[in-house]
């Protein structure tokens, strides 16, 4: 997935926010265009068909939600990431019902925003591009290359040990399914399962989280299932 091929449209009225975001995205290798109003943004999207649109919910010429709906009505199908300051559930629901694909609340962490952008792009374009490769596994916004044993997030490579890589791969193969510690021991540690204990699993999971989670104190990728074991989110 070459991020240089992706063109992202930013519709955001605040110049300071837009410019810092542009900087962040461009440094990741994305091409960006910034429009400060909804009308301009839609017009630009119609003409240039960007790969992804980051849309602020509060714009000088109207609500981002209305522009989102207008874009969907005019057959613009690219992923839309809404930016909002209201944390309320209603915004989330409305944003998604209006056709948005994801939302983030301001202030956001740049890392997390980039992670969401990558995940949206991969979901819309990435997996199609690598449809023939059985060696590539996607977990959240990470790419696992089974041939090389490498895990990357954007341009960044994550240094996982072989056990951690096997652990993450095993989760990826059983996406969303709760796995018991015994299952994990059998699958990841294999023959040595009988000498390892549940505690080993806990320790490895914790270390893996510290490497792959955006905020390791608030895990979002590998979740503990009380009374059972673990599962990979999504």
């Amino acid at each position, binding site marked *: 997935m070459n991020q240089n091929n992706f063109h992202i449209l930013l519709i955001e009225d*605040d110049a*300071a*926010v837009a*410019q*810092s*975001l542009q*900087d*962040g995205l461009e*440094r990741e290798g994305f091409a960006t265009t910034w429009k400060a109003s909804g009308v301009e943004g839609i017009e630009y999207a119609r003409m240039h068909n960007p790969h992804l649109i980051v849309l602020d919910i*509060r714009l000088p010429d109207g609500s981002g939600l209305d522009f989102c709906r207008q874009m969907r009505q005019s057959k613009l199908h690219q992923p839309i990431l809404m930016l909002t*300051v*209201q*944390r*309320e*559930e*209603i915004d989330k629901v409305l944003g998604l019902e209006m056709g948005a694909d994801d939302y983030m609340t*301001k*202030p*956001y*962490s*740049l*890392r997390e925003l980039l992670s969401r952008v990558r995940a949206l792009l991969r979901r819309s374009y990435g997996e199609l591009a690598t449809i023939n490769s059985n060696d590539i596994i996607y977990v959240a916004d990470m790419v696992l290359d089974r041939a090389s044993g490498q895990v990357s997030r954007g341009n960044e490579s994550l240094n996982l040990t072989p056990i951690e890589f096997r652990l993450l791969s095993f989760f990826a193969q059983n996406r969303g399914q709760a796995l018991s510690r015994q299952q994990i021991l059998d699958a990841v540690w294999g023959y040595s399962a009988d000498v390892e204990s549940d505690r080993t699993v*806990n320790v490895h*999971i*914790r270390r893996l*989280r510290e490497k792959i989670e955006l905020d*390791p*104190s*608030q*895990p*979002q990728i*590998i*979740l*503990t*299932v*009380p*009374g059972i074991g673990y*599962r990979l989110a999504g």
Partner: protein
Amino acid sequence: MRAHSIRWRLTLSYAAIACLAALALGAVLLGILRRHYAIQERDYLASNAESIGALVSSAFAEDVPINLLQSQLENLAFISKVRIRVLDIQGQELIDTGIPTDPYVMSFLYATSDQAPDDLGSGSILLNPPGEPAAMSGSVHVLGAEGSEWQPVNPAEPTTATSGPSLVDPFVPQASVSGIITGRTATGEQEAGFSGSAPADGQIIMDAVSAFPLSSALFGFAVGSGNASPAINVDTAPRSDQQITSVLSDANHNRLGGIILSDGPAYGSEIVTSVARGWLMAGGIAVLLAAAAGWFVSRQLSKPLLALTDVTAHMTAGDLSRRAAIARQDEIGTLARSFNVMADRIEETVITLQRFVADAAHELHTPLTALRTNLELVQSEHPSAAIRRAHDQVIRLEKLTDSLLTLSRIEAQSDPSPAEWVDLGGLIRSASELYASRAEQSELAFELSLPEHALPVLGRPGQLEVVLSNLVDNAIKFTPAGGTVTLCARTFDQALELIVQDTGIGIPPGDLPLLFERFRRARNASDHPGSGLGLAITKAIVKAHSGSIAAESSGNGTKMTVTLPLARLPQG
């Protein structure tokens, strides 16, 4: 409807007022009637007493034997329907006619004579109370055909010849009758049963006697059938309780004795009774009508009040646009209008506040977003401790802003999402993976204890999640590695209890009372990051859900208990 509602109270008051009015009116009316008739009864006795007094006085003066006087008085008592008692000068009772009892028997004696003058029709009347033969004494009056004159005749000693219970047996000697009665029967027919006698002067042939049982009625006498049983004609007319005592004296004003007249006819009693009966019925109807009127009026009163209550309930629940639609010109209308003016003001204030909070959130978050993004860009290009510290402070500022705005939003009740049925158990279960993961990353055991059944609460799921995560995050934050965080939910009575317990550093007793105040942090919490707003927000949310929160702490941990009202499961 509750018994102490206006609707019932007003209805009962109306009925009670009507009842009191009817009672008062009835009492006055009956009192006046009774008095009026009592006076009449008294007058009647008084006028009789005057005449009878005169008669007895003259009898005393002429030394008429008591038994003769008694029979006279008994007849008078029957005719005037009063009880007559005669007292001597010492107050001893000489004669008592007794309570006028019936039936009496009236006998007519007819005599025919060819020699009798044509213009005279005569009859004799014998009045005797039956069943009291010993006391019987006949008296004969001769009535001229014109009915103008009474002539008392002294009968001789009664003889004892009986011919049947209903017929009069002791009859006056024909001799004395024949001396007086002249004339013929009105009908010219002879009655069998008492045949003629030896006339003293050959002029009169005694012929017949016919007898009628008589009963006394209030307004006169009634003639019964000849062989009727006395019981049928028992006097049922009520007797007056009035009594007249008059002193008898001779022409020289010497006291001779006294007479007492009592038990006269009670003319008023039937009228009073029927008036009382009518009044009771009218009073009952009046009370019912008053109750109905009270119900109607109270409906008129309570309906707008209930509507107003409904509006306040909706406004309390957050629908500030509700207004009272009461178009009345009275005090309630004024109340509704001033209520609406007040509601306008409240809505305006709340909307202004909500708008301010929303604007403030946007205006504060926008520069913070730019600041944070720029710091993160610099940090990734030229990492330095100073930039990291600045970044930490931006995040701190951001959290503080966020918490303050959240608190304002909750307190201004500007959450746009309406309250809904939430299964708190489901909410906890779906969030428990995140809590368990967080606890695990802090090397803590996480225990979850939930009942199988649903835990329904009426509330906002987003806010309830904030309560849960604030409490669990606090427990994780203040518990050293190796400890345990327990999340437990249970129901009792109509409440739901949510308990978050840890084995952490605890809260000093002195800090417990201020724990939920803004910016208050326990003294031993200074090593841990935090704004001091988390528990204030938690409490505000719990309060907005009509619940309560309490903290207990000791050296080996803290227990936070949230109590929320349990909602009934939605129908269907």
